[in-house]
């Protein structure tokens, strides 16, 4: 069977090139609404935030290398761990996964673009400006230091009367809105714009993961938006939602935050696991084992994760019966997670392994995530959690599941899809070196922290006394951090060097089965010259699994300057309509700027500026909506 590398170069239609082109120069760049451009911006920006968050981690661990160090004073340390957690959770993990989804999902399902391109572009600008807004607190010197979950009363008006926490609340709310927007768009794309023939049982597991996590986002992010709004109102206009003296309750914040916060970590895990399940067939030369079970498990994890949040509050004094339920639910979620792991192992068993950097990351995922999952089941036990809650044991647990379950798959995925994004291959040797440094480093960093938790080391402490038996483990943990940092530097160098000078990739360098590999690397703006049709879960491995590459077919011509995509039904992906998408426009950028203007007005308590800002927001939305929305074909 020939690989698609031997196929003739893609037929590029001049009409399509014209319709989907972006004007050159700065105006073109600012008005670009193509999902690949926007997705790539998300990925790069999130990657930069990841490096920043990693630098903060290095600062934290350096301060803790020994007892009573003077490297960071308490204020700087508390700001560092707050920014570390906030950056990693809000500015790196979800945006990176959404960026990968925005880029890859239309390619994987055979669509030309996401259905609401301007909304997509708006999401990026709001993400960028929201992150910069949060970090502008460093410039003003009023840096949030309430921790990444920002509990009142500490973060409330009485104990933080300055602007620091407002930067956190408003900046984070912006990223939440971006998440919701992205999720909305991905759900609609996956529901209604798959390639004809891509019925539910032919959807790649990564796409399922994105679908599940996007639906979760729609229900998980609003509680935090609400809670943040209420805290901001407490801080700015004197309401009493969290003030126990006036009938409020600080525990309300904890409920609202964790009703968001627990699903949030599964929102991160599910697409990452989906990525692993989508990559693994390429390196075992065999499809994923137990696909229906894998998909059902992802959905089950999504549902169950909404019923776990109180396990973050086991020490807050809630009644016994309530907490008992959450123990059972929190442990039960290990069952569908177990299905994922053993399906992966079964796939590796039955296949012929092709050793490469992405496969290393997949194996690393299993080793690290399973350990974190096991400690997760442990902390689900209320009595045990009473000892280890808010200690370094929990810090170790969640870093194992996040680094193992989210970061390793992301790093492997970036390595795997790098050729599709840039047209070049990453260096395998540098890739492997980076993997081993990161894998070894993170184990060295976090394994000792389990013990520190037992020995009595609480979280979020800027220093500790000597003679408690903590010195050795902290020292080892900090060394591990430096090894990990070295690994990330090698990984970044690999990307930087090979971005424009790496070995040219061709359409399908891994001989992978997915639709995204059926077009050039990188894909043209319209993804596929002729819209593919699909009759298998692994289209490129079937003899005629996808529409013949590079030959005339559906929508390979253009009427006028229209950007057209196909609309299909939800269940069976029957083609039912052709839709026209809007072209390049500056309105999304303008709307995002208007929102940031409004936020600054809130920060400086200026009613005049606030009114101007609101007016600008309304005006830009009006301009946006008036200049043509998605239209049916006439």
């Amino acid at each position, binding site marked *: 069977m020939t690989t698609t590398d031997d196929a003739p170069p893609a037929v590029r239609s001049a009409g399509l090139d014209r319709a989907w082109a972006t004007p050159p120069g700065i105006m073109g760049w600012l008005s670009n609404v193509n999902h690949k451009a926007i997705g790539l911006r998300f990925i790069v920006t999130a990657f930069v935030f990841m490096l920043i968050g990693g630098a903060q981690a290095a600062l934290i661990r350096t301060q803790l290398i020994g007892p009573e160090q003077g490297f960071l004073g308490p204020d700087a340390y508390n700001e560092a761990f707050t920014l570390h957690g906030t950056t990693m959770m809000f500015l790196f993990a979800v945006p990176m996964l959404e960026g990968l989804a925005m880029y890859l999902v239309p390619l994987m399902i055979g669509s030309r673009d996401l*259905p*609401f391109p301007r909304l997509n572009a708006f999401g990026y600008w709001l993400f960028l400006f929201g992150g910069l807004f949060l970090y502008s607190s460093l410039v003003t010197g009023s840096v949030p230091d309430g921790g990444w979950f920002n509990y009142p009363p500490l973060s409330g008006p009485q104990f933080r009367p300055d602007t620091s926490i407002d930067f956190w609340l408003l900046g984070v709310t912006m990223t939440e809105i971006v998440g*919701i927007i992205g*999720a*909305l*768009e991905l*759900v*609609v794309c996956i*529901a*209604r*714009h798959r390639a*004809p*023939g891509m019925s539910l049982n032919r959807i790649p597991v990564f796409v399922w993961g994105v679908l599940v996590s996007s639906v979760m986002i*729609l*229900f998980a*992010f*609003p*509680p935090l*938006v*609400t*809670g943040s709004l*209420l805290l901001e*109102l*407490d801080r700015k*206009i*004197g*309401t*009493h*939602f969290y*003030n126990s003296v*006036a*009938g*409020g*309750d600080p525990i*309300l914040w904890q*409920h*609202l935050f964790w*009703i968001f916060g627990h699903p949030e970590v599964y929102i991160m895990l599910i697409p990452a696991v989906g990525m692993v399940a989508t990559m693994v067939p390429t390196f075992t030369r065999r499809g994923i084992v137990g696909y229906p079970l894998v998909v059902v498990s992802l959905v089950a994890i999504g549902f169950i994760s909404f019923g776990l949040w109180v396990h973050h509050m086991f020490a807050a004094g809630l009644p016994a019966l309530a907490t008992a339920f959450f123990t059972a639910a929190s442990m039960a979620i290990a069952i569908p997670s177990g299905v994922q792991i053993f399906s992966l192992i079964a796939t590796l068993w039955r296949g012929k392994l092709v050793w490469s950097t992405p496969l290393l990351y997949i194996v690393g995922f299993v080793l690290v995530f399973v350990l974190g999952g096991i400690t997760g089941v442990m902390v689900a036990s209320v009595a045990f959690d009473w000892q280890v809650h808010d200690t370094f044991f929990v810090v170790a647990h969640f870093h194992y599941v996040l680094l193992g379950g989210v970061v390793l798959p992301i790093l492997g995925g970036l390595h795997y899809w790098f050729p599709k994004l840039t047209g070049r291959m990453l260096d395998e040797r540098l890739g492997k070196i980076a993997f081993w440094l990161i894998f070894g480093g993170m184990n060295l960093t976090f394994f000792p922290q389990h013990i520190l938790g037992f020995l009595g080391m609480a979280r979020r402490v800027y220093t500790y006394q000597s003679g408690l038996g903590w010195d050795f483990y902290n020292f080892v943990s900090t060394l591990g951090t430096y090894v990990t940092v070295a690994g990330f530097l090698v990984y970044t160098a690999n990307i930087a060097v090979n971005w424009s000078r790496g070995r040219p990739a061709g359409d399908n360098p891994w001989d992978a089965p997915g639709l995204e590999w059926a077009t050039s690397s990188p894909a043209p703006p319209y993804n596929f010259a002729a*819209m593919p*049709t*699909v*009759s298998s879960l692994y289209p490129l491995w079937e003899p*005629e699994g*996808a*529409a013949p590459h590079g030959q005339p077919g*559906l*929508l390979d011509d253009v009427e006028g300057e229209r950007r057209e995509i*196909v*609309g299909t*039904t939800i269940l069976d992906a029957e*083609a*039912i*309509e*052709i*839709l026209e998408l809007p072209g390049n426009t500056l309105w999304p950028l303008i709307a995002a700027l208007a929102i940031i203007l409004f936020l600054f007005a809130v920060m400086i308590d200026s009613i005049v500026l606030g009114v101007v800002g609101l007016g600008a927001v309304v005006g830009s939305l*009006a301009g946006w909506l008036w200049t043509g929305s*998605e239209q*049916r*074909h*006439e």
Partner: protein
Amino acid sequence: MSVQVDAALLRRQGVGEPRRRPPVWLGLLLGLGAIATILASLIFSYFMLMFHGSEWPPDGIRRPALGTPAIGLSVLVASAVPILLAGRAIGAGRQRDLRLWLAAATVLGAVVLGMQARGYAALGFAHDVNAYTSLFVTLSAFHTINLVTALIFNLATQARAWLGHFSAEYHEGVRLAALWWYWAVASGVVLFATLFLGPLLDPAVQ
């Protein structure tokens, strides 16, 4: 065996026989789902604080009377009818009726807003007295904002109706504005129940 699709057939089908709501409808539905979750979070907050405290409202604040808001609620619910009729009108191609019914809904919506404005003025407490007043004002404001945006959407749709953008075959904008209006009505009902009937659930309430 690959799937056969006839592009020419698809192009023809875009006109005259829409077989499904367009994807933007699903998008708005999902967006409203997220906003509804904000509403649910606000209601959760209300009931949590209500059951948490010993007296509700605390500190001798008097609960606002139910009567006038109930009238406002009836007007709000009634405003759903002209919206429904507007959709039917354009579905049958009756442009004039479309404009008429949209305008009727606008008037009713404006009446509700006016009543809300008077309600705020006559409340007898401000948002910053205690948790009850904070909740009351914030939840009410949440509805006001939803109603205002529904009205703006409605007015924009009317403008488009006057410009002749809609036809019997294609009037998605009307459907979307209608969906938003129904959301404003439904959220109003839920918030009314929470604020005025909710306290009756708590035995500690006076």
